């Protein structure tokens, strides 16, 4: 009986810890006015032409795959 109680308390503690951790994730919603950071130059996947060329070369050599990197839009996810 004592062991059962201990397990039950442990499970309840685990659930509470999960809930607290989950709550931390749930409040991290990016608001529309905060999306300026996403349009920063540093966020562009093609900001370094040399790195892009090397990655393309690797994909072409190892995976027989190249291109298909371009996406439209400004990147702000406005609408």
């Amino acid at each position: 009986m004592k062991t059962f109680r201990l397990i039950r308390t442990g499970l309840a503690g685990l659930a509470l810890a999960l809930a607290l951790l989950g709550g931390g994730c749930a409040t991290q919603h990016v608001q529309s006015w905060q999306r300026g950071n996403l349009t920063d130059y540093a966020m562009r996947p093609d900001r370094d032409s040399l790195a892009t060329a090397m990655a393309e070369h690797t994909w072409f050599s190892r995976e027989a795959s190249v291109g298909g990197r371009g996406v439209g839009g400004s990147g702000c996810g406005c609408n």
Partner: protein
Amino acid sequence: MSSHKQKSLLFVAGLLLAAFTGPLKAQPGVGDPLPDWGGLGLEGALPETGGRVLLVDFWASWCAPCQASFPDLAGIHRDYAARGVTLVAISVDRNVRAYEAFLKKHTPPFATVRDARQSYVEAVGVPAMPTSVVVGRDRKIRAVFSGYHGEKTGAALRAALDAALNENL
């Protein structure tokens, strides 16, 4: 399964659901008063708005649809200012240089201010960039338009402004 076990499971499920959905914050909607912008540190000259219908536009220099909406907003300002509509464009730019460069390039004919601390935009709870809010003479929100979808949004804005102007308070 015993009743006690069922209750425990329900409790845990509720706890996890509450944790992962996060707190819900009530945002002002149609029929609610527009939050007051006094004391929130808006940078720039705010126009006199007493007794006039308001069109409050939230925008940012990094937002392409906002840029596309400016010619339409300039047209609305030209057509409606004399009829009793005041347009206030509130930028949410943190980067003052980007904000000033945008204004220098686009030279809007309407009032433009900057919400540098992003406190007013948070109070209004703007869902997307840009968002236009039509406010009646009683300072209550009449319509909210999220995003800019070209002529469709322009026509909807004009219709909402016409309706707000034709109200007898």
